[in-house]
């Protein structure tokens, strides 16, 4: 019964951890391995103009929602200008201003974006736009629009096919007279053409809007924004190519803005130009996932340790690995049967090894323990009481550490300083226990247990230092639940310890011929 209970508990705990990890991998795009880089798009808008020696205000439309992309970060580069970013009429705008500007001016806005991990079925528009009033068209435009829309209406089933048909008709190679009137010689790649389409669609009470966007293409310089048409069918917005009537958006279309306002408005400047350049580079995926999480504002994102201040994060990088050190100790003690001085002492020494690095760590550990032991043996002759004696050893441990640091400073070995990270209290206890074992069971046993602890510490260090593991646990702290399950199951292990198999050898096997006790 208890066996079943423990197994079920272990399974449940593991399942919960795996479910959470799976959700994080799929929804936030967290990588299981470190150093997998994700492609990040960087879009830079360059605004150039000549200042007119007066107060200058540059009002620039900057992206808010990026369509199929998520904003990681943005940078405003503008020397000598004050910056104000805000939302005006549902539109995010940056306003640079300065009292005085002279000569050619250059302002930059840079955006970093990554694809959304899951395809969103369009922007979930909570806000349904009211159908526009039918404009009071003038003749002959009025009849041209009515005729055209009337023809299309007979051939279409819903709003989107209606819009699509209308656009095909208005972009026809061989336009009829009505279409010619509507076209009014507008350049069909321009913003004015999209505005015209919106005006025409208003005749059928269809809400439509103009969208600006950047087509992402690596190393594209001096790009301009692409204007697109978006139509609302009562539940969601859908994009349409204003020149062909095809539904959808161009590939790699990063939505810049959905505003009717001009992209850029400058007070006190001439010869204004805006150009966009696009580049792609690789970035650490954890940063990307973090931004995705913040952008989506999900529960999952709240479980990310990146929400903590950086130095706290670093603490957790170490802290989260401690249970893995404990795993080594638990394994070595319950499965292998290696004796250690104290249960958690090897873990604490292993943590110190993280800072000192292995070879130095071992050397320093042996140095401190050896000098502590020799003092302890001397103190034994003074016959001091236990606690003051322990404290005297502690003082010596601290002094030895200080001396090592000072000597290594003289010699220019900076590794010597890292000794300060050794857990002094734990070392003091190690020294005391070793000396008691030394007296009680002889130096052999004391050294054996000391070495046993040291080797478990080294093993723990190697596990705790493992980069993949650190990465994994930091991104998925819930994976510690799996460890909990391992401990629960290990706690119910009743098999032999490996050392016992050797210990009990003589019960089942004929003793060796010389039959002497082993040393």
């Amino acid at each position, binding site marked *: 019964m208890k066996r079943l209970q423990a197994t079920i508990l272990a399974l449940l705990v593991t399942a919960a951890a795996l479910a959470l990890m799976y959700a994080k991998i799929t929804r936030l795009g967290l990588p299981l391995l470190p150093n997998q880089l994700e492609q990040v798009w960087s879009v830079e808008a360059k605004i150039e103009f000549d200042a007119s020696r007066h107060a200058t205000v540059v009002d620039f439309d900057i992206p808010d929602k990026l369509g199929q992309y998520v904003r990681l970060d943005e940078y405003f580069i503008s020397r000598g200008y004050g910056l104000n970013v805000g939302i005006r009429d549902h539109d995010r705008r940056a306003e640079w201003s300065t009292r005085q500007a002279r000569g050619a001016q250059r302002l930059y806005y840079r955006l970093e974006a990554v694809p959304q991990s899951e395809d969103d079925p369009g922007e979930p528009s909570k806000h349904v736009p009211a159908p526009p009033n039918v404009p009071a068209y003038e003749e002959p435009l009025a009849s041209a629009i009515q005729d055209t829309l009337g023809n299309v209406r007979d051939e279409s089933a819903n709003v989107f096919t209606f819009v699509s048909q209308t656009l095909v008709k208005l972009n026809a190679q061989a336009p009829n007279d009505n279409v010619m009137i509507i076209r009014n010689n507008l350049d069909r790649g321009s913003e004015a053409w999209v505005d015209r389409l919106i005006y025409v669609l208003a005749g059928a009470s269809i809400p439509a809007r103009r969208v600006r966007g950047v087509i992402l293409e690596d190393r594209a310089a001096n790009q301009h924004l692409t204007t697109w048409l978006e139509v609302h069918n009562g539940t969601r917005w859908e994009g349409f190519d204003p020149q062909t009537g095809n539904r959808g958006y161009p590939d790699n279309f990063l939505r810049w803005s959905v505003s009717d306002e001009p992209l850029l408005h400058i007070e006190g400047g001439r010869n204004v130009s805006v150009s966009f350049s696009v580049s792609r580079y690789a970035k650490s995926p954890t940063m990307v996932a973090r931004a995705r999480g913040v952008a989506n504002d999900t529960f999952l994102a709240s479980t990310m340790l990146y929400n903590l201040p950086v130095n706290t994060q670093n603490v957790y990088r170490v802290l989260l690995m401690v249970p893995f050190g404990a795993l080594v100790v638990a394994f070595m003690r*319950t499965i292998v*049967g290696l004796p250690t001085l104290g249960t958690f002492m090897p873990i604490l020494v292993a943590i110190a090894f993280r800072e000192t690095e292995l070879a130095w760590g071992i050397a320093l550990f042996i140095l401190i323990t050896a000098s502590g032991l020799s003092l302890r043996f001397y103190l034994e002759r003074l*016959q001091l*009481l*236990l*606690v003051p004696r322990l404290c005297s050893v502690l003082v010596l441990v601290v002094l030895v550490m200080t001396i090592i640091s000072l000597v290594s400073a003289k010699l220019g070995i900076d590794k010597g300083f890292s000794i300060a990270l050794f857990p002094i209290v734990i070392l003091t206890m190690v020294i005391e226990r070793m000396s*008691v074992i030394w007296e*009680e*069971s*002889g130096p052999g046993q004391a050294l054996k247990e000391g070495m046993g602890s040291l080797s478990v510490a080294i093993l723990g260090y190697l596990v705790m230092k493992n980069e993949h593991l650190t990465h994994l646990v930091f991104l998925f702290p819930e994976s510690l639940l799996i460890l909990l399950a391992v401990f629960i199951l290990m706690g*119910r*292990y*009743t*098999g*032999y*310890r490996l050392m*016992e*198999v050797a*210990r*009990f*050898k*003589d*019960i*089942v*096997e*004929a*003793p060796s011929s010389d*039959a*002497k*006790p*082993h*040393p």
Partner: protein
Amino acid sequence: MLSRIRKLKAAGVVGINNRNRGYIMPHNPRALYARVDDKVETKRLAIAAGIAVPELYGLIHAVREAKDFERMVEGHKDFVVKPAHGSGGKGILVITDRRRDMYIKGDGHALTAAEVQHHIENVLGGVYSLGGQPDQAIIEYRVKFDRVFEAVSYRGVPDIRVLVYRGVPAMAMLRLPTRSSDGRANLHQGAVGAGIDMLTGATTLAVCKNRRIEEHPDFGTPLGGLQIPGWPALLLLAARCHELAPLGYLGVDMVLDAELGPLILELNARPGLGIQIANGRGLRGVLNHIDAAAPLPTAPEARVAVMRAYYEGLTEAPVPL
């Protein structure tokens, strides 16, 4: 490796994990540990039950009382200092003689009163106690062991460990101090463990440092075939200890005093598994037999009979030397 694991399983050898989870956890309620971990309490319970124990000369609670030990041992040429909460024979100081102002240790070293006092202070400070808790120091009668063991003991006191499972003596061994165990009868420290035939009370095999031996490592005297006097009485005494501390998995340490007969030295709530090597057989068989005999009789004599039934039914002798 794997084949040896299989052999150990087949021989019914119990490992530490199995001992802890299968026997100690279910049968030894933690609340009762105090009765055996505190040797003063054990002594008190034993006296109340009419079981003989080494006489208590004095108990030292605090450092300022440490010097009183000289008053306590007045009139006694020899005595033993031990921690009330010690384990594994740690912290036991045996004084066998006195010469002028000096106290002579079991190994012949002479100590000053100040040195004995320092040892007592260490005991009080918790150096030898479980978990380093401050402790008390017991000063008691030194056992004058029976001459039968003289040829096989190096200095200290040989004792008899009986593993009592659910009140039934299950397995036993004679523990003999050696030079390398520093006169202590603890297998961990290098003492010899000699398996005892539960039916006859004669030693069978012997083990030292987990390896089978035939002769005492210091004297070269044979270790097999040694008859322990008054064996049925010792078994009964061991079974009765279950009433002192109803721990299902109990180690009872007894000594044979030349004048006073069998005495209970101490009880152990976590007896070790070396007894299996000393006897050349695993514990599982007898433990299963006892489990199958439940509900067990209340009379200690009847419980000993449960054990006898098991060993009489065994056809094969332990693995011979």
